[in-house]
């Protein structure tokens, strides 16, 4: 930590960190210095707008406070005549070419240029000359409009594109006062993070098509919450008008999102009011019903099945997960609860080992890491904001990156080592890696091990998919962590990228087949992946799906379809109508993260609060209440009668959450590992064989086929693009990725139509030839509306083998 120094600003003493920028020190000392171009999130200051000029004693010329590091004893003036005249001058200059169309400008009322003009400008204009003209507004992308006349050329958006998202698509064209922001050849700016430029723009030059002319600042309220569309759990602020979400803004939290949002989180909100939204309880066939009937019907089925009931939890808050497992374990009397969508997931003892606070990395540890090791995940698709965070560490801090995955990742380009293993080969690869780290073994993991040598602060970002098909992968992860001394080094640790947004919270709330709340021991239940067979055998007759859509998200689609049809009683909690809800006996509506009140747990252990910001459409009720009533209908009183009581019950049941309050979570969240109650984490049992091992056996011979199939969840696959009109253009069409050599062998090129087939099942895809792919391996997207790869993955978790054939004439 840098030294504390004292500086004097406008006659008052302000304490500052030596070397920090004067503007930041002044801000903490409650002195506002106006800025346009300065934004620390964008990296080094550029000193372009000249708005923040201040007088520093001993320096004759005015200095830009955004780029002047503080020194002890510095005496600064921000309100002298000289400074005021410079501020007036810069505002006047900015307005030379800025149209005064504030009454029709979307930014009006929340515009830094307006505010600064009022606060620091001359108050009157001396300009009578014509301003510059551009055609406007033009689509910079299908989501963002650009009005170049309003642009004050602060370069924030260009710097974002070049230095944060690193897509380098935005450029300054022309020069001088003819300069304008654009892209090469006027191509649309398409990047998963590009919506951030609308937050950055200090004028009305960059606006969202989804928000233009929808509201004025005096019509709206800002409501802070957390986005639960992926495990990044970015902090957001919902712009709400008439109780409906109109816009999503980033709510800076350096411990979580660093102040950025991906476009998924930013533009995904319009699906909240999609016509597919389920807005009240329904019975088989989609008939609307009243809550009493629906709850009674659900309770009857569960009661009849008793221990032959099972529940799967996916998109849910901690409280919801906690209540689901209570309903199952206490009211129904069934041990069958699971929240893992990865196969053969590690179980209680492994989670206990991984939960060791010493082994767990914080998101911000990535910033200071010497080495970032990405294992089995492509953060761009699975947790986009982590992708930005890793890039930042490399760009600003010189962190080294090593990547080991089955599929090429967006991070490969900057990695010192990027190694591929076969789909399903993670456990074997990790074993090799652990050997290579232990002794200088020459194997496929050598390059990664070499990259790790000498690194002190190491953050391993690992994907939950790593554990398929062998749970031993996670054991290897712990061994590797020991080799790299992650537990001993401050700032080192493991950071998981789970499949679902609140995976960690659900595990800790007790949604595991062999662990109750707080990873306590529980009577072993069935895992997700044994359910279809158990249903087929008639051992499970009643199924509750809470925020889970097996027909889209799970492999073995046909087996699941058969299972859902075979089960006597199917209760589905879902936000939207889908193929699964169509088969349900009872459907309960779910709240979105704009409507829900509850907590979630970030993969790094940070509990965050999702706050209700918008009204629930139709007849939707809070889900804690629905679950509590369901339990009552089953004859068991959970004692939960409000969201606070649900949260209190959760914190009582999870020993390492003990004593948590809403106030402690606040707006920024709190990591449970950093609280005293963390010591209540149970000790992992020593070397105990997984209790559920018996249930993991795979039967049958692996199918034949020249290509080994891997699947991945594309950032844009799923309802996010299908139900959001604004994002529909991003909906991925199925594509089959193959290596350059395989493409040559098959005589296909990128864009060709191909059939991917296995055992008589087939789907259509466009060929995508990719560098850095292994030969003999192909990848398809899981979760698309059509040609879903999951429908092929019949032998899964055993690697599926497929055949690829070019569709002639394509």
């Amino acid at each position, binding site marked *: 930590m840098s030294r504390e120094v004292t500086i004097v600003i406008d006659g008052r003493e302000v304490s500052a960190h030596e070397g920090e920028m004067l503007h930041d020190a002044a801000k903490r000392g409650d002195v506002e210095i106006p800025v346009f171009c300065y934004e620390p999130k964008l990296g080094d200051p550029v000193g*372009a707008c000249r708005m923040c000029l201040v007088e520093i004693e001993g320096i004759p010329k005015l200095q830009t406070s955004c780029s002047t590091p503080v020194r002890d004893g510095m005496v600064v003036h921000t309100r002298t005549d000289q400074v005021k005249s410079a501020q007036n*001058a810069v505002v006047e200059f900015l307005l030379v070419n800025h149209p005064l169309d504030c009454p029709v400008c979307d930014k009006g009322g929340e515009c830094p240029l307006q505010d600064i003009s009022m606060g620091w400008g001359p108050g009157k204009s001396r300009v009578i000359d014509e301003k510059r003209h551009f055609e406007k507004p033009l689509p910079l992308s299908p989501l963002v409009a650009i009005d170049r006349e309003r642009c004050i050329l602060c370069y924030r958006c260009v710097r974002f594109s070049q230095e944060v998202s690193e897509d380098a698509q935005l450029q300054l064209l022309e020069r*001088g006062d003819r300069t304008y922001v654009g892209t090469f050849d006027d191509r649309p700016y398409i990047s998963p993070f590009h919506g951030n430029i609308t937050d950055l723009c200090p004028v009305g030059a960059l606006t969202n098509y989804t928000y233009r002319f929808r509201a004025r600042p005096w019509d709206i309220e800002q409501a802070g919450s957390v986005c639960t569309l992926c495990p990044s759990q970015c902090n957001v602020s919902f712009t709400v008008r008439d109780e409906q979400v109109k816009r999503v803004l980033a709510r800076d939290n350096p411990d979580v999102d660093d102040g950025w949002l991906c476009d998924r989180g930013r533009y995904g909100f319009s699906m909240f009011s999609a016509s597919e939204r389920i807005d009240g309880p329904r019975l088989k066939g989609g008939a609307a019903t009243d809550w009493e009937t629906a709850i009674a019907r659900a309770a009857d089925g569960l009661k009849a099945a008793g221990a032959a009931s099972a529940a799967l939890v996916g998109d849910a808050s901690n409280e919801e997960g906690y209540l689901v497992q209570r309903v199952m374990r206490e009211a129904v009397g069934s041990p069958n609860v699971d929240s893992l969508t990865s196969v053969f997931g590690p179980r209680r003892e492994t989670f206990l080992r991984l939960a060791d606070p010493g082994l767990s990395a914080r998101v911000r540890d990535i910033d200071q890491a010497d080495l970032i090791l990405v294992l089995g995940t492509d953060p761009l698709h699975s947790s986009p904001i982590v992708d930005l965070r890793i890039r930042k560490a490399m760009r600003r801090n010189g962190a080294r990156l090593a990547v080991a995955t089955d599929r090429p990742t967006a991070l490969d380009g900057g990695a010192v080592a990027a190694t591929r293993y076969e789909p399903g080969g993670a456990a074997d690869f990790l074993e090799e890696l652990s050997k290579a780290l232990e002794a200088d073994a020459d194997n496929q993991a050598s390059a990664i091990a070499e990259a790790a040598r000498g690194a002190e602060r190491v953050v391993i970002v690992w994907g939950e998919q790593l554990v398929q098909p062998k749970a031993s992968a996670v054991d290897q992860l712990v061994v590797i962590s020991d080799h790299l001394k992650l537990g001993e080094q401050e700032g080192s640790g493991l950071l998981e990228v789970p499949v679902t947004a609140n995976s960690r919270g659900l595990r800790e709330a007790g949604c595991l087949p062999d662990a109750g709340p707080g990873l306590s021991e529980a009577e072993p239940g069935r895992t997700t992946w044994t359910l279809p067979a158990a249903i087929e055998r008639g051992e499970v007759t009643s199924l509750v799906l809470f925020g889970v859509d097996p027909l889209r998200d799970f492999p073995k689609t046909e087996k699941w379809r058969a299972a859902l049809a075979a089960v006597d009683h199917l209760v589905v909690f879902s936000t939207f109508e889908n193929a699964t809800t169509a088969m349900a006996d009872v459907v309960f509506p779910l709240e979105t993260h704009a409507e829900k009140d509850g907590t979630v747990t970030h993969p790094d252990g940070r509990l965050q609060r999702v706050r209700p910001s918008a009204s629930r459409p139709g007849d939707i009720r809070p889900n804690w209440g629905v679950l509590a009533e369901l339990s009552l209908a089953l004859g068991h009183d959970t004692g939960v009668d409000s969201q606070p009581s649900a949260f209190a019950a959760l914190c009582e049941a999870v020993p390492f959450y003990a004593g948590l309050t809403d106030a402690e979570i606040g707006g920024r969240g709190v990591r449970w590992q950093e609280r005293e109650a963390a010591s209540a984490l149970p000790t992992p049992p020593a070397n105990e064989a997984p209790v559920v091992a018996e249930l993991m056996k795979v039967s049958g011979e692996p199918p034949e086929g020249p290509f080994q199939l891997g699947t991945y969840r594309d950032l844009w696959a799923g309802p996010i693009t299908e139900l959001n009109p604004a994002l529909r253009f991003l909906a991925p069409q199925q594509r089959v990725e193959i290596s350059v050599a395989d493409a040559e062998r098959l005589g296909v090129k990128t864009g060709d139509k191909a059939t991917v087939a296995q055992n008589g099942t087939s789907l259509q895809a466009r060929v995508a030839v990719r560098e850095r792919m292994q030969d003999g391996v192909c990848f398809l997207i899981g979760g698309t509306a059509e040609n879903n790869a999951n429908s092929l993955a019949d032998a899964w978790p055993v690697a599926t083998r497929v055949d690829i054939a070019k569709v002639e004439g394509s």
Partner: protein
Amino acid sequence: MPETRVLLKHAEDPELRTLAGYRGYGGYETLERAYRTMEADEVLKELEDSGLRGRGGAGFSMGKKASFLPRGDMQKYLCCNADESEPGAFKDRELMMRNPHQLIEGIAIAALAADATLAFIFIRGEYDLVADILDTAVAEAYEAGYLGKDILGSRRDLELVVHRGAGAYICGEETALLDSLEGKRGNPRLKPPFPAVQGLYGGPTLINNVETLSNVPRIVARGAEWFRGFGTEQSPGTKVVSVSGCVRRPGNYEVELGVPIRELIYDLAGGPLEGREVKAFYPGGSSSPVLTPADLDLPYSFEAMAEARSMLGSGSIIVADDSISIPHMALRTAQFYHHESCGKCTPCREGTNWTVKMLERVVRGEGTPMDLDIIASVQENIIGHCLCVLGDAMAMPVGAMVRKFREEFEQAIAAAGEAPRPIAAVQGAPETMGASA
């Protein structure tokens, strides 16, 4: 008054530009001595003691600048700024055309002092012929072992690359030059960090003008004392001065710093045309505040020019005689800087644009009585508020013209409403200003 030819010595000999011709006059002897027998610090000390001031415009001590480079094993660079783009300046062109090896020898010796092993000559793209001459000379120097690996067995290396600019005035600004050289948009960088600490590709970089570096061989050969024998206490040495505009014999003249300006304009350049009188002149390129005939007897030195609230700059005198309309001259000056402003910082981008619009109105006969005060105030608002000095480069001369020739502007404004004059038909604007050299 005769010239004092040091840098331009033997310049009349067309063979001087060849390696053989240059060596015939003792060329590269200093490089040989320096690389064989001298330590970096000795060379550096000689340069510091000489008091040689940068000839590119800012006039900063060259030796001091070189001494700012950190010591250590990191890659260091030397950049020769040959992007001579200031209207009125054309002395570097002549120095490079006539005596390219003098510059190469200077670069090699300066690189020794700065411990740089990779050097660039960033030459303005329009100097195509000159760049060809440099290419030939650099090839000869490599051939002779004055550049490349293990120069003259000294175990010191120096690679020298001639890089042609793409035609932007701003790339003569040292940090924009670095960005351009790195392949980026040529925009000035924020200083600090100064290039000496963090320059090209983030490494310590010494950047000097052509004329500055051309001085180096003789300073090291004959010593700082010898150099200080020329010029004044604070402006030692000789200076190649480009004199242009309304004079009979425009051209480059090498004189000792400190000679009276009158001698430069009247004796060497032949004074104004028959029947004309000097009305105003830029003493140091188009970015220097104009001076009037009252200043003609000032000594031509860095300090005297600064005292007269102008500057010596790159040493380029542009003379305007009494046929020239000052408002037109102001407009033409402003147009140049408006066209060349990179647009990165607000005061320069908008200030140059606004000034041009107002001056256009004044010249067109559509000015308003407010305009003059606003023009003056806008120049004040630019000066000292920009990221680099380009904005000041317009604001200083335009401000000075409004201050010193206010009556002329007032007349133009008073005549507003009379038949407007098209801007294209600007009469008497010095021809040299737009298409410098």
